[in-house]
């Protein structure tokens, strides 16, 4: 019994790392530009596709294909920012959100044009096999994925807090006008945010595609990442990490404990959304988000 509990807990934690990195990407974009971006789900999928093309089809060495996929992902984010989001800088935020949604649909079409109905598998690059800790099996490649997800998050948080660039990003996140007045080039900061978040989304995509292979639902993970960012609070990195891990654990516990009770199973699809509804009813701004004070 207890073994089962720890088994579900550990596999859930490892899945949760994957969700956490996507959640952190969305929180990063929201913190600086106040736009919750749907487009990163597609950037994630394209990052996975680039990695597949370099590593699986062209057979480049691992490090070269990984960094090329990240560079291409960054370029994609740069293009999206330059062509679309820049024109909408003064507009109401809902318009910007709709623009990210339109970019999502457009890139979804391109993605489906490439993928069609097939499933592509990335060849395994992490060590195979499982580690056995007192009866609990931990898959080695899942563990590798977890560390690959957590490392960029840690680097990003350190960058955000302790570097000059991070200071500029935080200042822009507080108040665009005052930041511009203090001499920070806000447009450049936006572009930097988009490039950094696209690189992180590409990492997230490579990690996700290792687990769920490349086929048409892959961009849907971006939507789930948005849900996780909301559960944790759109302007809190710690919230996104906590929410990602929690949703991962709850999904795997739901699949383990509740699935046999319900005909048809499949509880893990809907756990994240039920969690979102419950959390928003109790805390309308997410678990660790700041409440906005509204004035007339």
């Amino acid at each position, binding site marked *: 019994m207890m073994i089962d509990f720890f088994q579900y807990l550990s596999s859930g934690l490892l899945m949760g790392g994957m969700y956490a990195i996507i959640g952190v990407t969305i929180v990063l974009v929201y913190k600086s530009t106040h736009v919750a971006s749907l487009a990163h789900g597609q950037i994630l999928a394209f990052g996975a596709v680039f990695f597949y093309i370099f590593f699986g089809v062209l057979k480049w060495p691992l490090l070269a294909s990984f960094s090329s996929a990240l560079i291409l992902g960054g370029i994609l984010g740069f293009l999206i920012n330059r062509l679309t989001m820049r024109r909408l800088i003064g507009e109401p935020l809902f318009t910007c959100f709709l623009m990210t949604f339109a970019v999502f649909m*457009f890139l979804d079409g391109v993605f489906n044009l490439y993928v069609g109905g097939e499933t592509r598998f990335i060849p395994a690059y992490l060590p195979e096999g499982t580690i056995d800790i007192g009866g609990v099996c931990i898959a080695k490649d899942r563990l590798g994925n977890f560390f690959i997800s957590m490392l960029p998050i840690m680097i990003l948080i350190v960058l955000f807090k302790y570097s000059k660039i991070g200071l500029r990003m935080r200042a822009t996140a507080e108040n665009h006008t005052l930041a511009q007045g203090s001499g920070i080039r806000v447009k450049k900061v936006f572009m930097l945010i988009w490039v950094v978040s696209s690189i992180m989304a590409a990492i997230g995509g490579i990690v996700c595609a290792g687990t769920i292979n490349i086929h048409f639902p892959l961009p849907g993970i971006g939507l789930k990442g948005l849900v996780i960012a909301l559960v944790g609070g759109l302007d809190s990195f710690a919230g996104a990490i906590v929410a990602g891990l929690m949703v991962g654990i709850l999904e795997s516990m739901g699949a383990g404990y509740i699935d046999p009770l319900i005909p*048809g199973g499949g509880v893990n699809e809907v756990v994240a959304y039920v969690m979102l509804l419950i959390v928003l009813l109790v805390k309308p701004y997410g678990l660790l988000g700041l409440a906005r004070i509204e004035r007339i």
Partner: protein
Amino acid sequence: MRSCGVFDETYEKDIAIVRTWRHWIVLIGFVALLFLLPLFFSYYFISLLNNIFITAIVVLGLQIVTGYCGQVSLGQAAFMAIGAFASGLFTTRLGLSFWLALPLSGISAGIIGLIGGAPSLRIKEFYLAMSTVAIHYVVIWVITHLSITGYTEGLVVPAPSIGDFVFDTEDRMYYVILMVTLLLTYFARNLVRSRVGRVLVAIRDNDLAAEVMGINLFHYKMLGFFISCFYAGIAGCLLAHWYQVVNAEQFTLNHALLYIGMIIVGGMGSVPGVFFGVIFFRLLDEFILVISPVLAREFTWMGMSPAASMGVMGFGLVLILFLLFEPRGIAHRWEIFKTSYRIYPYRN
């Protein structure tokens, strides 16, 4: 803008939907033309029109709650599914006739919509949009996991009938759908010029100020959600009886996002904008269906039938272009056009 020589002398004239006797003639002529269409046009065109009218009903509901009341609702597809499955269950399990099941499925979708809209009081804007997405996924999950709704296979639904006369061809269903659409469009247009419509717009513009003025936010937000889900339920019921098969695959999140795209392109906050948006996207779909075999032959790397992905790409591209260049939609351009010929030779 009024044409030269048209003055509003009474309040009724000011808020009238049809203003002059010339407008009445055009309106009556147009409605008569709509009724006579099946005599002149082909089967395919009539089925396209059926699709357009059903989509217009659900997007009208979305316009009331999102365009006029400001509460972004991405759950319209799920409420359409509730209406469709409810009507399917009413007609197959309970043996009710279609004409009774139609308003009942609207009301049942509306009641479930109240449960979905209840969080909207405390949650604002973007969080509300995502919580309606969550409601969509939960509703679809519940529908596909219940045995009375047939799990993932769905239900088979009979066609509507009056006595011995069964509405099972496109032309006959066209008249049913046309009547319901005309009625609901008139109801929506009337709603937005009434006191309730002004309250909804006040909530959209600044809900704190509206509350300070004495508007009961909870009551009217619930009303907005109820009306939009009622429209979605009726559209779902019509869809079920038109296709005669109901399945959860007909109501995905992509459909809900398509409806939001339609009101953006058509124009948020205007009833004619609904029809502009719906007709624009349906014509775009048909256009892509026509050119995709040509593209598949010319560019063989696109695969066998790129129609599905080209459709989505076209939708995204159109939406991007509209958001960049005309965020107020086709309805805004239409207003500018009408003004240009009404105040000729002056310019706006």
